[in-house]
């Protein structure tokens, strides 16, 4: 099913609730960013740092690898998802791991790691509360920061077999269940929000501390991360730590912002994943590599709020997902750049100033095949005489026929009346 069909299904079920919940987060974000008087300067700074990063990505990757090794971290470079998954599997096999605790990582979703490990007999427990909920429901996250925003407390009670739907009660129950998993896991896997090139550090931001437990308790901690997450130095990291949580959820900073170096009680491994990123640098879509996955573009998107994340069918939904998904599968996701009114709200909230409207129009072009009739129409419109001819034809077309041609409009809305006379005759 395409976006417009899934959107109707979702909206009729819970669109208004979903819209309201996410708009409340947008408002919290607005309030939080207005507390920082230099907010717009921070955005410009963040955007400049990211421009520098994508222009110097190869050098920064090399610098990071050198410094991470010096720090005492084992580093791998994976060309694609398959290579990444195999590296993870080998690392787990080495210690004969049976169970891993995972914290949120959009990259492992991109690589399909969970399915791959399960197929190889390794149990994967997602430990972010929202991610655990969707995992137990047999679903994928519908939002990259609020993975279970499409569910209700009743849904959560149901998967836990509880009749009590009190959120605090359910959270405590989940916490207890997860604590047992943490204590018995053989390894922890997490993503990283940032990599600091000058130090070789990985920075992980969570609100639940689940990444920290997974990093500290088991003897092996694997960090899977896309190469674009690199920032040059600690000073630049400061800019992003100030921006990330405010823009995502309206918090001043995430509850846990941990800088990981060498692991004291075992082994820490970082797998840098390319999976098409270096190639993307040479395309018109290279600016999408500036994204820090703050999710503000999803939360603000008026279409996303009403259609839900699953209507995008890709692991990263919303405006940024509509720029990433067609690069993975052009045919399957060609409807996504059109699931958008080009309202520009995403561009306004984007902390690294990705030019969304321009990129989305570019993506529409990328997924659209040349059409000889459209080409002819475009050429004709250079001439006022031809335009006038079209105008005559439309005026002679009977209204029912017009309504049929424009049925997606007329199903829901009245068509405007066509006046007899034009202004420029």
């Amino acid at each position: 099913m395409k976006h417009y069909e899934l959107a109707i299904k979702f909206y009729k079920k819970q669109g208004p609730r979903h819209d309201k919940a996410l708009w409340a987060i947008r408002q919290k974000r607005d309030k939080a960013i207005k507390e920082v008087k230099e907010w717009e300067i921070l955005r410009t700074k963040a955007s400049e740092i990211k421009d520098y990063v994508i222009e110097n990505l190869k050098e920064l990757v090399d610098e990071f690898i050198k410094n991470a090794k010096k720090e005492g971290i084992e580093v791998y470079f994976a060309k694609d998802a398959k290579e990444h998954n195999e590296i993870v599997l080998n690392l787990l096999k080495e210690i004969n791991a049976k169970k891993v605790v995972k914290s949120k990582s959009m990259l492992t979703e991109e690589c399909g790691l969970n399915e791959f490990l399960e197929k190889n007999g390794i149990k994967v427990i997602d430990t972010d509360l929202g991610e655990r909920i969707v995992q137990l429901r047999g679903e994928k996250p519908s939002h990259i920061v609020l993975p279970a925003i499409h569910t209700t407390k009743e849904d959560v009670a149901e998967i836990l077999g509880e009749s009590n739907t009190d959120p605090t009660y359910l959270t405590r129950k989940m916490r207890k269940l997860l604590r047992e998993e943490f204590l018995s896991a053989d390894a922890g896997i997490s993503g990283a929000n940032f990599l600091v090139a000058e130090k070789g550090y990985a920075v992980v931001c969570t609100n639940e501390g689940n990444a920290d437990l997974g990093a500290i308790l088991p003897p092996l901690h694997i960090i899977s991360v896309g190469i674009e997450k690199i920032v040059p130095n600690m000073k630049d990291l400061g800019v992003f730590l100030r921006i990330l949580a405010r823009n995502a959820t309206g918090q001043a900073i995430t509850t846990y912002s941990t800088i990981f170096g060498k692991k004291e009680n075992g082994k820490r491994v970082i797998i840098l994943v390319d999976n098409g990123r270096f190639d993307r640098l040479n395309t018109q879509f290279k600016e999408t590599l500036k994204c820090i996955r703050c999710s503000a573009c999803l939360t603000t998107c008026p279409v996303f709020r009403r259609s839900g994340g699953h209507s995008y069918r890709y692991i990263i939904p919303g405006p940024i997902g509509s720029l990433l998904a067609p690069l993975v599968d052009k045919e399957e996701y060609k409807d996504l750049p059109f699931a958008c009114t080009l309202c520009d709200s995403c561009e306004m909230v984007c902390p690294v100033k990705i030019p969304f409207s321009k990129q989305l129009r570019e993506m529409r072009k990328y997924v659209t095949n040349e059409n000889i009739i459209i080409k002819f129409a475009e050429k004709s419109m250079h001439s006022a005489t031809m335009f006038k001819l079209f105008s005559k034809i439309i005026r002679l077309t009977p209204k029912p026929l017009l309504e049929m041609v424009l049925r997606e409009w007329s199903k829901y809305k009245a068509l405007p009346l066509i006046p007899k006379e034009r202004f420029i005759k």
Partner: protein
Amino acid sequence: MKVGLFVPCYINELFPEVARDTTILLRNLGVNLEIPRNQTCCGQPFLNSGYESSLPQNFEEIFKKYDYIVAPSSSCVATIREANLSVSNKTFELVEFLHDILQIRNLAKNHQPVILHNSCHSLRMLLEAAPSELNIPYFNKVKNVLGCRVLEARRDECCGFGGVFSVKEGFISYVMGKSKLDDLLNEDNLKDIKDIPIITGVDMSCLMHLKGVAEKENIKAEFKHIATILREANETL
């Protein structure tokens, strides 16, 4: 100062009165206005649908002789601005031109209260008002030019028109239009309005979409382009 009037194609076809009101208003304000007869479309429908178009270059050829180019539509102006042409920075949306170039304020100060729909291109692309996403001080050029009591929606989000979006995703387009209407006509805004509420804006495309929803839903409101309000107000001054 020679000014060229750019009549967006959909205005020419569907809302000739908006072009007429813009013309009368500008001429009454003493603007030396010309209307090139050979103008057509800025190319936006093609560019936003994934096709190439050299219509912005065609526009440049037709309009380059003017000191300023004015259009009663922010989305067409945004298309020309984005095309990076010699005419890009001298092409203005009507209210922008009145506000920034002619420095006009309070033109309709005796008008009854109106409800303003800040359209996306006006708000976020031309920055005719402060979008809620940014941390910048509040301002609204449309309000300044009008000068009467202007009520706004609580959320400054998109009305759901979106050009090609309105025919590709008719349903979501409609529900967005419905929530925009409900918001524009919220109880605080309606408190002091005795007659049928007037909803205005700088983009007739959004107003056409909202009007379409209102008609289907039997919601009573009058939709009036800003040019019409300003023309009427200027004539009664």
